[in-house]
C-alpha cells in the first residue's frame, strides 16, 4: 500500500510548493539590491556579480544535479539542494563584504538552485505521477514557480518594511528551509522495468546527443532562453527610448508575469491532449508573429500591453512541453540529466540574448536588428520542431 506521504496529490502539492518557494525566493532578491547595498555600503556591481555567479552555477550545475537525481532519487537531491539554498540565503544576510556575498548568494545559492529547482521537481513528477496526469503536473509546477514571484514579492517587501533587509533575507532563507521537508514526499522512484535497467549517465547522454530530435529540441530551447532574457532585460530601455516611460515597461513586464502563469499551466494541460512538437512549433511561430507585429505596428501603450500579454502566454509554456517530450522519447530514467542539458542550452541562449542585445545597441544605437533576430529565430525554432520524432527510442519501444 502507498504510504500517505506518497499519495499522488500530496506528491504534486509538495513539488509545486518547492517550485513556488525556490523560484519565489530567488525572484525576491531584486527587492534586496538597494536596501542591502545601502546597509552594507556596497556598490551595485557587488550584488550584480553575486547574482551573475549564481546564474552561471545554476545553469552549469543543472546537468550534474540531474544526473545525481537520476542515480539517487530526486527527493534526496531536492532536500540537499534546498538545504544548501536555505543556508546560502541565510548567510547572504550575514555577509558583510563582496567576497562573502559572492560565496553565499553566488556559489551556495547557485548550487542550491541546481539541486532544488523545478527541473528536479519535473524529474520527480516523471517518476512519481502517472503518465495520464504527468503533462498537467509539469505545467502546474512551472506555473507555480512563476506564481512564486507574486507570493514572495509582497512577503519580501513586508519583511523588509518590518525588520530591515538583513533580517528579512534571513526570514526568506527560513522559508526555503521548508524545501527539504517537502522533498520527503518526492523521495523514491518508480518500480518500473525502465527504472530497473541500468544504463549509465554517459550512455544516456551519448544516446540523446546522437538522436536528431534531441538536438532539435535543444536548439529550440536555446531560442526560448534567447527570447526571454532579451525581452526581460532590454524591453524596459527600448520602451523608454520610444518615449513610453517606465510605467508602461513595468506594466508590460507585470502582464508578462501574469500571462506566463496562464500560459505555462495551459501548455501542461494541452500537452496531455495534443502533439507536443506541434504545440511547441505553434508557440515559437506565435512568438515570431508577436515580435513581428510589435515591431511593425506603431508603439503605443495599448500595443505594448497587448504584446506583453501575448508573449507572456508563450513565455514558459515551452517548459512542460519540452520536458514532457524528453520523457516520452527517452523515458524517465535519465530525465533529470537530459533535461538539465537542454536547460543549460536555454541558459546559454539567455546569456547570448542579453549580451548580444547590449552589443547590438552599442554598435547601432537601436534594437531593430535584435527584434528581427527574435522573429527569425522564432520562425526557425518553429520549423526545427516539426520533424521531431515523438515516439520512444527503439530501446524503450522494445522493452
Amino acid at each position, binding site marked *: 500500500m502507498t504510504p500517505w506521504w506518497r499519495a499522488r496529490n500530496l506528491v504534486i502539492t509538495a513539488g509545486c510548493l518547492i517550485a513556488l518557494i525556490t523560484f*519565489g525566493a530567488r525572484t525576491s532578491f*531584486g*527587492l534586496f539590491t538597494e536596501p542591502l547595498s545601502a546597509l552594507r555600503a556596497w556598490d551595485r556591481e557587488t550584488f550584480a556579480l553575486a547574482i551573475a555567479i549564481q546564474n552561471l552555477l545554476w545553469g552549469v550545475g543543472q546537468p550534474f544535479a540531474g544526473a545525481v537525481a537520476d542515480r539517487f532519487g530526486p527527493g534526496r537531491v531536492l532536500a540537499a539542494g534546498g538545504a544548501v539554498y536555505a543556508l546560502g540565503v541565510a548567510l547572504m544576510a550575514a555577509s558583510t563584504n563582496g567576497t562573502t556575498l559572492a560565496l553565499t548568494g553566488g556559489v551556495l545559492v547557485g548550487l542550491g538552485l541546481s539541486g532544488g529547482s523545478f527541473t528536479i521537481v519535473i524529474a520527480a513528477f516523471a517518476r512519481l505521477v502517472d503518465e495520464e496526469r504527468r503533462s498537467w503536473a509539469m505545467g502546474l509546477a512551472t506555473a507555480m514557480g512563476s*506564481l512564486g514571484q*507574486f*507570493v514572495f514579492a509582497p512577503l519580501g517587501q513586508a519583511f523588509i518594511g518590518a525588520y530591515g533587509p538583513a533580517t528579512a533575507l534571513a526570514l526568506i532563507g527560513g522559508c526555503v528551509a521548508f524545501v527539504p521537508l517537502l522533498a520527503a514526499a518526492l523521495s523514491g522512484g518508480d518500480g518500473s522495468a525502465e527504472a530497473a535497467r541500468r544504463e549509465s549517465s554517459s550512455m544516456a547522454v551519448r544516446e540523446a546527443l546522437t538522436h536528431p530530435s534531441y538536438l532539435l529540441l535543444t536548439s529550440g530551447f536555446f531560442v526560448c532562453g534567447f527570447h526571454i532574457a532579451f525581452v526581460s532585460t532590454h524591453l524596459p530601455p527600448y520602451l523608454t527610448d520610444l518615449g513610453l516611460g517606465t510605467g508602461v515597461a*513595468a506594466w508590460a513586464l507585470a502582464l508578462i508575469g501574469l500571462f506566463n502563469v496562464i500560459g505555462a*499551466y495551459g501548455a501542461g494541460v494541452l500537452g496531455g491532449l495534443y502533439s507536443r512538437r506541434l504545440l511547441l512549433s505553434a508557440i515559437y511561430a506565435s512568438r515570431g508573429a508577436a515580435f513581428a507585429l510589435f515591431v511593425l505596428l506603431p508603439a503605443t501603450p495599448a500595443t505594448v500591453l497587448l504584446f506583453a500579454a501575448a508573449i507572456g502566454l508563450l513565455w514558459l509554456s515551452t517548459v512542460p512541453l519540452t520536458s514532457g517530450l524528453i520523457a516520452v522519447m527517452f523515458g524517465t530514467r535519465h530525465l533529470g540529466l537530459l533535461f538539465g542539458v537542454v536547460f543549460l542550452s536555454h541558459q546559454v541562449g539567455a546569456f547570448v540574448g542579453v549580451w548580444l542585445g547590449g552589443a547590438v545597441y552599442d554598435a547601432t544605437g537601436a534594437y531593430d536588428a535584435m527584434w528581427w533576430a527574435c522573429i527569425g529565430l522564432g520562425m526557425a525554432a518553429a520549423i526545427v520542431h516539426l520533424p521531431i520524432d515523438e515516439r520512444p527510442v527503439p530501446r524503450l519501444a522494445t522493452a
Partner: protein
Amino acid sequence: MRRRTRELLVGVAITLVAFAGVYWQAAQPGKAGEVPRLVCPLH
C-alpha cells in the same frame, strides 16, 4: 468531480492569485519600477 473540471478550477485559482500579485505590485507607491526585476524565474 470530473478531471477536466478540476483542472479548470486549479487554473482559475492560480490565475486569481497571480492577478492579485499584479494588483499588489501596481498598488505599491513608487514600487512599480521593481516589477521588471520580478518577471522571469529563470533569470
